[in-house]
C-alpha cells in the first residue's frame, strides 16, 4: 500500500506507538483520523481515507493513523473516546474509526463496526472533527 498521508502505527513496540500517536495528536491545526482494526473492509477503506486526507479545507491539515489492533493504544484511546460528545455510552471495542478535532483534540465523527467505511462516512468524520473547533479559530489566530 502506497499511502501519502497515512501512518501505520507499529504493533510490536508500545512505546514507539505511543510516541508516534502523541506526536501527531499534538500537532497544531491537524485533523487526525484514527482507523482501528485490520479487516478487509478496513483495508479497502484506507486508500479512500488517505485520498481524503490529501484534501484541505480552510488551511487545516488532515492525517490518517492506522492502528491495526484495538489493544495497542487502548490506554490512550479509550479515555480519549470517552470524552466524545457524540455518544457517551460508546464501547471502545465497537469503534473502527474516529477523528480528532484540530485544536482541542476532541474525539468525534465516530464510525462503529457495523457501519460502512466509504468516502461519504469518512468525509463526514473529517468534517465533524474540523467543525468541532471552528468557534476557536478566531481566538487562536488572535493569540498567535
Amino acid at each position: 500500500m502506497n499511502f501519502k498521508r497515512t501512518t501505520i502505527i507499529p504493533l510490536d513496540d508500545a512505546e514507539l506507538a505511543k510516541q508516534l500517536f502523541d506526536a501527531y495528536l499534538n500537532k497544531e491545526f491537524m485533523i487526525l483520523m484514527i482507523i482501528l482494526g485490520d479487516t478487509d473492509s478496513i483495508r479497502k477503506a484506507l486508500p479512500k481515507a488517505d485520498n481524503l486526507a490529501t484534501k484541505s479545507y480552510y488551511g487545516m491539515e488532515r492525517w490518517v493513523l492506522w492502528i491495526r489492533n484495538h489493544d495497542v493504544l487502548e490506554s490512550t484511546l479509550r479515555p480519549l473516546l470517552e470524552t466524545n460528545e457524540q455518544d457517551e455510552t460508546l464501547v471502545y471495542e465497537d469503534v473502527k474509526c474516529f477523528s480528532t478535532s484540530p485544536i482541542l483534540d476532541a474525539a468525534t465523527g465516530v464510525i462503529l463496526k457495523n457501519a460502512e467505511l466509504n468516502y461519504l462516512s469518512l468525509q463526514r468524520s473529517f468534517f465533524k472533527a474540523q467543525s468541532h473547533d471552528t468557534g476557536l479559530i478566531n481566538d487562536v489566530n488572535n493569540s498567535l
Partner: protein
Amino acid sequence: MTNLKAILVCVLLLFSLAKVQAQIIQVTEIDRGSSRSISLAEAQIIDINASLEINLSKTELLKMIAEQYPQYTQQTALESKINAISDALLNQEAILNSLILGVENVESQQQFFDLMELFLMTIGENEMLSQRYEILSEAYFNLENHETLNMEAYIFSRFNADALELKEQLKLMEATKYNVSLVAFKKDKLGGDRVHVQNFDTYTERDYVTIERWVTSLSDSQEEQIAGLAEKAKTNEAKTLRIFESLKTKLITYLPNLDCVQAQKENLMTLLNNPETYGDLTADITLQANELFSRLNALSSMVTAFKSDIGSWTITTPFELKTNLENFSKNSKHLTEDFELLESLSKAIERLRPKFDQLFQGFEPCVLEFEAYFKVVQETLTLLKLQQSNYIVNKTIGDEVHRFSIDNLPSKGFINLKGTGSRTNGDELVLEVVLRVPSTLEGAPEQQFLLEQRSFYMQLIGARSEVAVGMILANPIGSTNPAIDPARSFFYAPSASILLKFGSKSSYFYNEFVDLGVGLNFAASDFDTDGTPEFGTGLVVTGFKDIISFGINYNVTLDEPYWFFGINLPFNLPGLPINSVKN
C-alpha cells in the same frame, strides 16, 4: 451561527418526522411571531387568526403516486431520482461560494460545515445517491489534475449532469403526463368556501376578517360587518350540506299523503263488490274501475319507494331527478284521466249515479291534494338538484387553481386565515393534494384523484373574552329585607356576563364541550317586585358553551347578596321560561 445550527436541527427534526409520519402535506402555524409544526400525532387545532405555511414533500408525493397508480411507476421513478438530486444540491451554490471565496471567518466556515453535513446526510439517506457519490469520489481521485480541482465542485457538476440526463429521459417518455394541485376549503356551519393558497392558485382572498380576541360589546361597524357577512352567508348557504339535508326532509314531508289514496282504493273496491251495484256495472266500467285501482296502487308503491330512495341521497352522489319527476307527472296525469273516464262511463247508468257521486266526492279533493303535493315536490326537487350542483361546483377545482408537474411544484404555499372571510371557533380548514390526469378521450374532462387530505379545526387559542346574555335564577342569601317576598326562593333576572375564556390547541373536548368561562356578571333582578329592576353585579363561572352558569352577585340597589345559577339551553324546553344563550 446559532441560527444556522437551529435551522439544521429543525431540518433534521423535519427529516425524522417525515420518516415517522410520511405525509405529503406538512403544516406550520405562524401565530403572533411564533411558529409551530403540526404533526399528525397531535390535535389538528390551529389558531383562527394564524397564517399557515404549507410544505409539500415531493418525495412522499412521488411515493404515493407510485404506490397508488402503478401506471406511473416508470415516470415517478425518474422523477424521484431527479427530486432526490435536487434536494441534495439545494445548497450547492452556498457551499461553493464559501469554498471559492475562501472567507475564513468563523460564521462562514461554520455555515460551510453545516451545509456540507446536510448535503452528505441527504446523500447518505438515499442508496442511489450514496452509490453515485462513491463512484464520483473514486473518479475524482483518479483524475490526474484532481489536486487543482475542487472536489465538491466536481461532484456537484456530475450530479447536475445526472439530473439533466434524467430530465431528458423523462421528456422522451411516452407516458400520460400528470399534474398536481393543492386546494384548500373552509367548512363551516353554513357549508363552505374555497380558500386562497398563495403560490398554488390565483383565487382572490375573501373579506379580511380578524376574529377579535377581546370582545366586550359589538360596535356599530362590527354589527354592519356581521350584517354584511350574514348576507354573504345566505348566498353561501346555497352550497351547504345542511340546506341539502333540510330540503330532503321537506321533500319527504311534502310527498303525497297516502292516507287519501288508501281510502279511495278501499272506497272503489267496496263499490265494485257491492251486491246492490254489482249487476248494473258494465264491462267497460269494471275495466276502467280496475284500471283506476291499479293506478292508485302504482302511485302508492311509487311514493313509498321514492321516500325510501330520498333517504339515501347525498349531496356528493348524483341522483336521478328527471325520471322521478317524469314518473310523478305521468302518474298524476293518468290518475286524472282514469278518474274522468270512469266518471263519464258511470254517468250513463242512472242507477249507479248516487253511489258513484259519493265516490267522486271523495276522489276530487284527493286528486287536488295530490296535484298540490306534486307541485311542491317538483319545486323542492329542482331546488335539491340546484343545491347539489352548487356544492359540486364549489368542490370542483376551478381554473384559478394552478396545475404543476413534479419538477415545478412549489415547495411552499401560504394561507392567511384572516383573508378567508367570516369564520367562527370550530370551523374546519381542509387541505387536499389532488392528482390531475388529462383524459385520453377528446373533449372529456380531466380525471382527479385525491392523494392526501388534512383537516384542521380553527379555534381562537389562548385567552379571549366573550359577552354572554342569558336568564339567571337568583336566590337572596339570608335576607331579612321585608321588601323581598320570603315565600319565593328564586327570582328570574336577565343578565349579561363578560367572560374570560381559553381556547386549547390540544383538546377538541375542551373547546367543543367544556368551554369554561369566568368573569363578571351584571343582572337586573326585581327582588321587591315593584316592577323596577335593581342592579346587581358579581362573579360568574360558566361551562359547556355557557349552557350552565353559576355565581355570586350583590344587589346594589337593595344591599342584598345573592347566589344564582342559569341554564341557557340552546333550544326551548316547555315549562322552562328561560331564553337560550346569546353570545
